[in-house]
């Protein structure tokens, strides 16, 4: 098995590196865009329970659409290539981050919220001094879940010509080349593990000192 992997590397190394680069770009950009949407939206929903149910529900529905189908659905509007792939992947990345931002803030103990208000914090200061720092580990966990999913789903982006490790997998399936499939699948799996580990480490770093579990 090890020898086999080395052979694959020797044969497809260059393609693999290029595909890996594209894959990382797709996943990181998509999750970053997802964060830009999900975090402000999650914060906005905190004081708007009436909308929260519908928005979270609606975003949840997107999650249930099979990704290949969603790639197909945006095809007529956005065509093929990197842009539609980023758009679809971003949609998928929103839910875990949105849900964790919303519930993370909601679950901050009312004791701290009352203390903050009672001290004379404005809504914005309460968020900045108390709610966001205390919710940060939960939000980070959402980002972590999101990036692991997106790394897996980004392999499907190759179906609409966005490149990435999926190129190797689809290519391998097309010509029934087992090595080529492995050349795409193994790096994708490793990438997901590494990303999860990195974000876990980052989560520890950004967790406010007083609430870190040792």
């Amino acid at each position, binding site marked *: 098995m090890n020898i086999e992997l080395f052979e694959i590397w020797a044969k497809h190394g260059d393609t693999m590196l290029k595909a890996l680069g594209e894959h990382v770009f797709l996943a990181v950009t998509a999750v970053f865009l997802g964060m830009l949407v999900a975090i402000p939206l999650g914060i906005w929903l905190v004081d708007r329970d009436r909308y929260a149910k519908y928005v979270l529900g609606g975003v949840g529905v997107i999650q249930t659409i099979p990704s290949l189908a969603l790639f197909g659905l945006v095809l007529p509007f956005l065509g093929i290539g990197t842009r539609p792939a980023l758009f679809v992947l971003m949609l998928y990345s929103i839910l875990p981050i949105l849900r964790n931002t919303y519930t993370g803030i909601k679950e901050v103990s009312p004791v701290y919220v009352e203390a903050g208000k009672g001290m*004379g*914090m404005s809504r914005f200061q309460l968020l900045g001094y*108390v709610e966001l720092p205390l919710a940060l580990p939960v939000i980070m966990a959402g980002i972590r879940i999101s990036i692991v999913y997106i790394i897996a789903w980004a392999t499907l982006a190759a179906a609409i010509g966005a490149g990435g490790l999926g190129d190797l997998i689809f290519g391998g399936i097309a010509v029934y080349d087992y090595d080529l499939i492995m050349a795409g699948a193994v790096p994708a799996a490793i990438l997901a593990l590494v990303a999860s580990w990195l974000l876990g480490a980052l989560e520890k770093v950004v967790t406010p000192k007083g609430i870190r579990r040792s």
Partner: protein
Amino acid sequence: MVIFDRVSKQYEDGHEAVKEFSLEVKDGEFLVMIGPSGCGKTTTLKMVNRLIEPTSGTIYIGQKDITKEDPVKLRREIGYVIQDIGLFPNMAIEQNIDIVPRLLGWSKEKRKQRVDELLSLVEMDPEVYAKRYPSELSGGQQQRIGVLRALAVEPPLILMDEPFGALDPITRDNLQEEFKVLQKKLNKTIIFVTHDMDEALKLADRIVLMKDGEIVQVGSPDELVNSPADEFVSTFIGSSRMENYKRSETR
């Protein structure tokens, strides 16, 4: 200092928690509100810093109708200590103490000086404690910080909701003594909520005894013990406590 003028609070579910509450709290007075659980003490207290809005009636602080003030600004001028302590776990002790000064935009030097000053006030060495986190302190130490936090910008008025309720009896006793001395020194107006009669008798200049959202009796500890208004008051104080109190007074 603080005037309650026929203040009532009815919650959305129709429950009348406070009924026509009228009272004048004097400058520098240590006023204790006491009564059985659910009698409306917390509701009354939170109406003073507008965490709860009255359904009817008016509260004045130093002649000014508080509904005419910006609630955020109002709260920064009133000290507030809650039962659950509520120190922010993500902030070191110094950051907890100087939160209101930060909100008010004090300089770093002035804030540091104030933190040191306050910690020394309760004999906690700033070198040792300023950088610690709340979880690294005992319950008694945490509530000392909770009190210091309320004192940081020297508000003339401080609201305290069962501040020592969650502490063990010995720590509670110590903190009560400490706080009594502190209050004499600082000369603040304090509205203090408790359900513990011993605490009330020990700390209060004046006691307000409440029941079902209404005032039953207002008076000094002496007055309550020596001339309870009715059966409820004397039962609430308890006969043995009355005996003890009278005995210690004559001594």
